[in-house]
């Protein structure tokens, strides 16, 4: 079986696995619906029918929905999976399997996430869009730039989570560390609310961290908040962070292979 077919199959099985427990998907839909419903109503209370701080309700609804879609599509359980595999010893099997461990995790997560986006966020997005308005990119070039930026952001998101997972080789028991680094990521990536609404001092801090390039910058391009002249600079910075995270991942993986402590299995 060639490599493309192998990873495609992994992706497909990742998607199919979500169909096993349908009730879980129903409650996931309900939970996410309530979460987004609450956030939209809070923004309705904040913005009313007009615009404040150069932000309209349609922009915020579009931002909220796309943030959830993007962060869900590219979310990864790599960190938890690696930690669990080290804990029960099954990590030993992954060292001898004839496939790239990182790509396997990526494809498996993509499969799971496609399902969540189709079943959970597409209905919510349609409902919210019909009620409050959903914006499309103003030009085709803007849309194309958004897709390129989104691809970079997706890889950055994956590598970040994967690197946190690799820390499990050293910190054997760190169930909460990744969750709270996730909190930090959400705050500095503008998932809570857009960075263009942050105070100047906080926005300046985010410029030096990679998190705003995960989801915020692609969405800022989509909504036209990033001037066209600035788009090449944003893409270049995303590429820089991607190279940096890739280098960190490679170093950690090489050291982890030497460090691995199989606890049983």
């Amino acid at each position: 079986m060639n490599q493309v077919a192998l990873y495609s199959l992994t992706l497909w099985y990742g998607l199919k696995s979500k169909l096993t427990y349908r009730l879980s998907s129903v409650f996931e839909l309900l939970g996410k619906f309530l979460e987004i419903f609450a956030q939209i109503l809070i923004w309705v209370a904040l913005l009313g029918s007009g615009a404040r701080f150069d932000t309209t309700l349609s922009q915020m609804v579009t931002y909220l929905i796309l943030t959830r879609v993007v962060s869900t599509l590219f979310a990864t359980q790599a960190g938890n999976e690696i930690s669990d595999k080290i804990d029960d010893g099954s990590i030993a099997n992954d060292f001898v399997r004839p496939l790239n461990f990182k790509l396997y995790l990526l494809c498996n997560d993509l499969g799971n996430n496609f399902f969540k986006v189709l079943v959970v966020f597409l209905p919510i997005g349609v409902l919210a869009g019909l009620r409050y308005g959903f914006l499309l990119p103003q030009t085709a070039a803007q849309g194309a730039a958004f897709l390129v930026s989104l691809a970079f952001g997706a890889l950055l998101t994956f590598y970040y989570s994967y690197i946190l997972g690799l820390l499990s080789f050293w910190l054997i028991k760190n169930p909460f560390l990744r969750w709270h680094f996730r909190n930090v990521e959400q705050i500095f990536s503008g998932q809570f609310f857009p960075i263009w609404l942050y105070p100047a001092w906080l926005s300046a801090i985010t410029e030096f961290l990679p998190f705003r390039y995960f989801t915020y910058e692609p969405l800022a391009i989509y909504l036209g908040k990033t001037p066209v002249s600035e788009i090449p600079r944003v893409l270049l910075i995303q590429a820089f962070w991607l190279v940096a995270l890739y280098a960190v991942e490679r170093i950690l993986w090489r050291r982890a292979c030497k460090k691995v402590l199989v606890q049983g299995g």
Partner: protein
Amino acid sequence: MKKTLAVLFLYMRVKAKGKYEYRAAFWLDALSFLFGYGAQTLLMVLLTQKFDTINGWTPFEVMLLYAYTLASYTLANALLSDVMWSLSRRIRTGDFDQTLTKPMKPLTYEIVTGFSPYYFLHFFLALGMVAIGVTQLHVTVTPLTILQIACGILGGACVQGGVLLLFASASFFWINNPLTGNFYTNIRPLIEYPISVYPKFFQVLLTTLIPLAFVSFYPVQQISGRQDFGLFPPVVRHLSLPVGIAFLLIAYAVFAAASKHYKSTGS
């Protein structure tokens, strides 16, 4: 009774010591907790300060909502998080059989062996936020105020504990209990903001069927003096503790009845 309590505390002490076995991980987790929640609070206050109010609620009133939710959540989770998150897996693998062989009620055993000491660090962070909120709102602190805050947080802990128990109870009927995933994590933020922004039917739901409004929205108004009760009379701001206790007792009864449906899968 004294010996029973001594055994229970021994279990909890051993559990806490077990968590401390991995020292670096323990302190990293503890610090990351504080940092994560502290950062979320900061962001929430910045948002409300930018817009001045949310439905009339000022930034530090919203901060009190978050602080009450967090404080009560940490108390409930210190005892019930393991029941909520692990019970479904333990039933599926048959590990719950061990619980039934112990000379104490199953829920008591699950609570003391699932005790999580991390949450007490969050609790102190939440208390700090309450102190900041109370100071910034220029509330006169008297013994009565402290009693009101304590009752509000305890009542909220009972409500959130009741919700966790009810969700965990479904594990005796559903193999892969969907309520013990991220469902509660997704709905808890509903009460970190004033529920008066939601439609009336939702406010009624959060006050009656699933009384999460008694976790923060009503008890905070006892302290802040805000009058925002929607369809309900002002007396609701004083009812956190009695409502919480009643809800917890109902949840316990449901859990006890559900556990009778347990069928071992072997172990």
